[in-house]
């Protein structure tokens, strides 16, 4: 885990793109983007449906699963943000 991830608290927001895809943006409290950090889409019991990395601008776009899901932005131990599907704007 990078120093950036340790020093600042993680932030994450997800947006419904209106085309059956979701974009989640990860970053840190100093405004920096979460480039290369782990991104996961899990079902409500924690089973991993999709796994990837935040891209060069700290975003991860995925096709909206059929099941209820939770997006997990994982910047290391103690720096994990989970976004419930109902909190997606």
């Amino acid at each position: 885990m990078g120093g950036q991830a340790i020093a600042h608290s993680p932030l994450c927001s997800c947006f419904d793109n209106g085309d059956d895809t979701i974009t989640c943006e990860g970053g840190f409290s100093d405004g920096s983007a979460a480039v290369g950090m782990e991104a996961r889409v899990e079902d409500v019991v924690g089973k991993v449906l999709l796994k990837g990395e935040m891209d060069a601008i700290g975003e991860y776009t995925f096709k909206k699963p059929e099941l209820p899901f939770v997006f997990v932005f994982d910047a290391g131990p103690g720096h994990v943000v989970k976004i419930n599907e109902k909190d997606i704007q």
Partner: protein
Amino acid sequence: MKMPKKTSKVMRLNFFFSRMTPLFGLLVLLAVLMISPEQVLAGDCMACHEKHGVMIRKPSVSPIKLKVDGKEQCITLERAFAFHGHECPGVTIAYRAVQYGIERLSPGETPDRDDLLITSRTSAAGVKDFIDLVMKGDNPAKKTWPPVNMGKSRDGFDFLLMKKSTCQAVEIKLLPENFPADFYLLKQKQKDKTITNEESDRLHRYMKKILLEFPHVPADELFGQPEPYKMILWGTVLPGEQDKNIRKMRQEEKKNLVTHFTPEI
């Protein structure tokens, strides 16, 4: 030292530990010696304290009471630290400032959260997280992003609290002399890994002072005695409007970064 051939399991274990303990002790000593003060203080305080067995004294300070959806809610400093992730000077300052502001605006009352508006002139993570906890609740998915290029400075601990029902506001600003002039300079050096051991110690002392002493310092010594004043508000901020605008700023900033990015050859 030879181990006897016929031994019980307990004896064999005792023998193993008697041989391994000095080696283990040596390894621990080496690990401690290899950690410079810079490394010790550079990261997350909580992780560092846990690693070195430092127990943190939890400052006891009265909770902030608010009515949320008609029910009284108590926010303690401990809960605020937990929401932020660790003990943090920004959380402590914002806690005392918001608590004092509420006391000045609604003496002896428990205000309704929906009746309050709060502004901050700093985007310090601890401050943002604390005000998020007060105004939005404890859902980490709803944490506020900092507006692009909103800096942090010792003059930024300046909060405006407004009470809509009485058209009153009060400005709570940390008196600059209460905040070290070189705090953010040292934080930057820490981030850049150019901080010296002496500077690390100084930064650690600053943080310790804020965390352990600020919760107990009388509010007027921290913030003076600002008087609430009557005010008129114009304009409308729709739910989510600010988040949308901040995201737009971030997107523009990212576009600029991508446009101006020159790959290394």
